[in-house]
C-alpha cells in the first residue's frame, strides 16, 4: 500500500522533471527559431534587390536628344526605361562629345515597376507596359542583372536608382569621429581608474557615473546632442561631426568598462616584476600592462563601435535622417548613415523600396557580424591565459 503511493509519487516527480526539462528545451529552441525566422525573412526579402531589371534599347546620341533627354529613346520604350537614367544623358553627352550622332544599343536601367513585375512582386505597372515587357522578355531584350546602382549611388527619389553609397560613406565619417574621440578618452579613463586612481570618493563617483551612463537609453544621448552640441556649441545639424560626437559619448562607457576588464585580467606579478627592475608606475603600465591588455581592449572597442554603427535613435534626433543623394565631402556637411537610410526607406510607400530596405539591412548585418567576428577572432588569437 505504502509502496504503491511511493511509486506513484516518484512517477509524478519524474513527469514534472521531464516537463521542466522539456519546457527549458522548448524555450531555447523558441529563441533559436526566432533567430532563424528573422534571418530567413530578411534574406528572402532582401536578396532580390541585388539584381535589377535592365532593357536592351537603342540610345540616340544627337542634338535633339541633348536638348530634350526623352528623345534619346524610342517612344515605345519611354514608359519602361528609368527616367532618372535618361535624365543623365545630356550631361554624359556634354562630357563625351565623341558619341554625338551615333546610335548604340545598350542595357539600360528599367523603372522600378518593371523590375518588380519581372520579380513577380506587387507593382503598379500598366497592362500596356506589361505586354511590352512580356514581348521584350521573349526576344531576350530584358534581363535581371547585378544591381551595381545599389552600391555606386546615393539615395534617390526613384527606387530603381536608390543606393547605399552616400549612407555608407556617412557611416564611415561618423565612425571616424567616434573612434577619434571615444577610443583615446575611453582608454585613458580606464587606465587612470584601474592603475592610478586612489580609492576615494571622487573615484567612486566616477565609477557610479560610468555605470549610470551605460544604462541611459540611447535616445537621451540624442537629446544631449541636440541641446548641447547643436544649440549650445553651434555644431552644424545633421553633420557627421555632431552624429559622431553623440555616438562617441554613447560608446565611451562600453569602451571604459571593457578596457578596465582587460587591464584587470593582467596579473599583478607583471607589474611587480616591472617595479622590481626599477620601472616607474607609468613605465610599468605603458611598457608592460597595456601591450598585454591590448587584445582585450581592441575586442571591447570593436564591439562598442559595432553597437554605435547600428545605432539610429540618437542620430534621428540630431537630424541625420535627411534626404542625402550625394556623399558628404567633409565632417560638417549634412550626412546620413546606413541605419538611418534603412529607417527612411522603411517609411517609403513605394513597394520597390521594401526589398531595398531589406538588402540594406543585409549589408548592415554583414558589416556588423564581420566586425563582431573580427573581435572574437582577435580575442582568440592574441589572448593570453594566465
Amino acid at each position, binding site marked *: 500500500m505504502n509502496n504503491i503511493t511511493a511509486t506513484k509519487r516518484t512517477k509524478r516527480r519524474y513527469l514534472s522533471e521531464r516537463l521542466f526539462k522539456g519546457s527549458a528545451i522548448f524555450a531555447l529552441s523558441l529563441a533559436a527559431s526566432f533567430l532563424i525566422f528573422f534571418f530567413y525573412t530578411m534574406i528572402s526579402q532582401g536578396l532580390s534587390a541585388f539584381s535589377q531589371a535592365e532593357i536592351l534599347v537603342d540610345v540616340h546620341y544627337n542634338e535633339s536628344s541633348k536638348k530634350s533627354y526623352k528623345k534619346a529613346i524610342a517612344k515605345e520604350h519611354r514608359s519602361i526605361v528609368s527616367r532618372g537614367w535618361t535624365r543623365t544623358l545630356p550631361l554624359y553627352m556634354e562630357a563625351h562629345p565623341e558619341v554625338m550622332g551615333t546610335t548604340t544599343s545598350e542595357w539600360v536601367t528599367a523603372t522600378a515597376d518593371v523590375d518588380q513585375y519581372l520579380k513577380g512582386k506587387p507593382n503598379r505597372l500598366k497592362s500596356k507596359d506589361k505586354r511590352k515587357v512580356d514581348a521584350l522578355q521573349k526576344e531576350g531584350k530584358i534581363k535581371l542583372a547585378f544591381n551595381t546602382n545599389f552600391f555606386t549611388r546615393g539615395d534617390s527619389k526613384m527606387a530603381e536608382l536608390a543606393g547605399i553609397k552616400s549612407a555608407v560613406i556617412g557611416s564611415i565619417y561618423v565612425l571616424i569621429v567616434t573612434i577619434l574621440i571615444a577610443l583615446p578618452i575611453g582608454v585613458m579613463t580606464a587606465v587612470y581608474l584601474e592603475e592610478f586612481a586612489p580609492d576615494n570618493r571622487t573615484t567612486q563617483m566616477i565609477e557610479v557615473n560610468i555605470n549610470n551612463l551605460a544604462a541611459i537609453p540611447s535616445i537621451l544621448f540624442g*537629446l544631449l546632442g541636440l541641446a548641447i552640441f547643436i544649440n549650445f556649441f553651434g555644431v552644424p545639424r545633421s553633420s557627421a561631426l555632431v552624429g559622431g560626437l553623440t555616438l562617441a559619448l554613447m560608446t565611451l562607457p562600453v569602451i571604459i568598462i571593457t578596457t578596465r576588464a582587460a587591464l584587470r585580467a593582467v596579473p599583478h606579478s607583471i607589474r611587480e616584476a616591472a617595479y622590481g627592475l626599477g620601472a616607474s608606475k607609468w613605465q610599468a603600465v605603458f611598457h608592460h600592462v597595456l601591450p598585454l591588455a591590448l587584445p582585450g581592449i581592441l575586442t571591447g572597442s570593436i564591439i562598442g563601435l559595432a553597437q554605435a554603427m547600428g545605432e*539610429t535613435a540618437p542620430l534621428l534626433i540630431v537630424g541625420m535622417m535627411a534626404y542625402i543623394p550625394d556623399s558628404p565631402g567633409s565632417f560638417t556637411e549634412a550626412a546620413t548613415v546606413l541605419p538611418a537610410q534603412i529607417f527612411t526607406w522603411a517609411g517609403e510607400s513605394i513597394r520597390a523600396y521594401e526589398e531595398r530596405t531589406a538588402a540594406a539591412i543585409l549589408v548592415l548585418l554583414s558589416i556588423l557580424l564581420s566586425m563582431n567576428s573580427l573581435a572574437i577572432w582577435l580575442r582568440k588569437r592574441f589572448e593570453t591565459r594566465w
Partner: protein
Amino acid sequence: MNIFDSIFYFCISLLPVAAIAAWMIRGRVHAQFRDTHWRSLPAHYGWYIFICMILPSSVLFLLVSTLHLLTLYSASGATLLSAAFLLTLWGGWYGFKNINPDLCAREFVESVIRYLLISAAFISILTTIGIVLAIIFEAIHFFKIVSFWEFITGTHWAPDDATSGNTSGMFGSIPIFAGTFMITIIAMLVAVPIGILSAVFMSEYASERVRNTAKPALEILAGIPTVVYGFFAAITVSPLVVKFADSVGLQADYTNALTPGIVMGIMIIPFISSLSDDVIRAVPRALRDGSLALGTTISETVKYIVLPAALPGIIAAILLGVSRALGETMIVVMAAGLRPNLTWNPLEGMTTVTVRIVDALTGDQAFDSPETLSAFGLGLVLLVITLLLNVVSIYVTRRFRSQYE
C-alpha cells in the same frame, strides 16, 4: 581665419617643429649620457621639451575656444596664432634653459600624463552632468508653460492643438506612459520566461558543446541593430498579428501594441539569458550537490535551491531588461502608433514616450514651441526612471555578490 582654422594651422606647423626639437634634445642627451649622470632617460628630456612647447599654447587654445563658444570673448584667428607662436617659442626657450643632468624630467612628464588621464576621466562625469543639465534645463522651460501636475495626471495629449498661449489640458502624459508600460510588460512576458528557461537549460542540462553554440547564437540576437528589429516588426510581424487576431475573430490595428512588444521581447531575451546564466553558474556547486544527494531531481534542485539562491541576480537582470525596454526607440517608432491611446487592449494602436520624443524633435516646429519642449519633459521622466532602475539593480547585484564571494 577663425579660431578653429588657427588651431588647425597650429597643428600642422608648430606640432612638427616641437617634435623635431624633442628629437634633437633626445639625441643631445643621448650623446652625453655615458659621460655624465643624468637623472632621467634621454627620451624623457625630449618629451619634456615637447610638453614645454605645446602645453602653454594648448591651454591658450582651450581657454579662448571655450570663451568663444560661451560668446564671452572672441579673438581673431591671426592674433591667436601669433600668440600661440610666441608661447611656443618661449616654452622652448624656457625648457631648453632648464635642461641639465639634475632636471627630474621623468617626474615632470609623468605628472603631466597623470593630469591628462584625470581630465579624461572627468569627461565621463561631464557627459552625465551634460545630459542631466541639458534635459532639466529644457524641461524647466516646458514646465513653465505646462504645469507639472497636469503633465503627470492629465489623460489627454494633443500637442498639435496647443499654441504657446493655450496649453491647458493638452499635455497629459498618462496615455503615453500607459502605452510605454503596456509594451514593456508584453516584452517582459516574452523575454523573462524564455530568457530564464534558456539560461537554466544552458547551465543545468546542456552539454558543453550545446552551450558553446547556443550562447553565441543568442548573442547574435543582441547584436542586431534596433532599426532592423523595427523593420522586421512593421513588415513581417505586424501583418501576422493582424491575421492571427482576425482568425480568432478579433480586430487588430496594424500599429497594435502587441507587435512591438513581442519583437522587443525577442530583442531582450539574450540580455536576460546571458545575465541569468552568469548568476546561475555563480551559485556554488556544493548547494546543488547537497540537494541532489538528498535524492531530488534536477528540476527540483533548480526550482527549490538554485533559482532562489540566484534570485537577486535574476531580478537585477530583469530590471536591466525593463530599463532597456522603456528606452527602446526604433522598434516602437516603426511599429507602434503615433496616437496616444488609453486602453487595456493590446491590439489597439498605442504610443510610447520615445515615439513622442522622436516625433516632437524631427518635425519642423521651432525649438521653443511647446511640442518640442515636451520632448524634454518626457525625456526627464525617462531619465529618472532608468537611473532609478539602474541604482536598484546595482544594489541588488551587490547584495548577491557579497552572499557567495
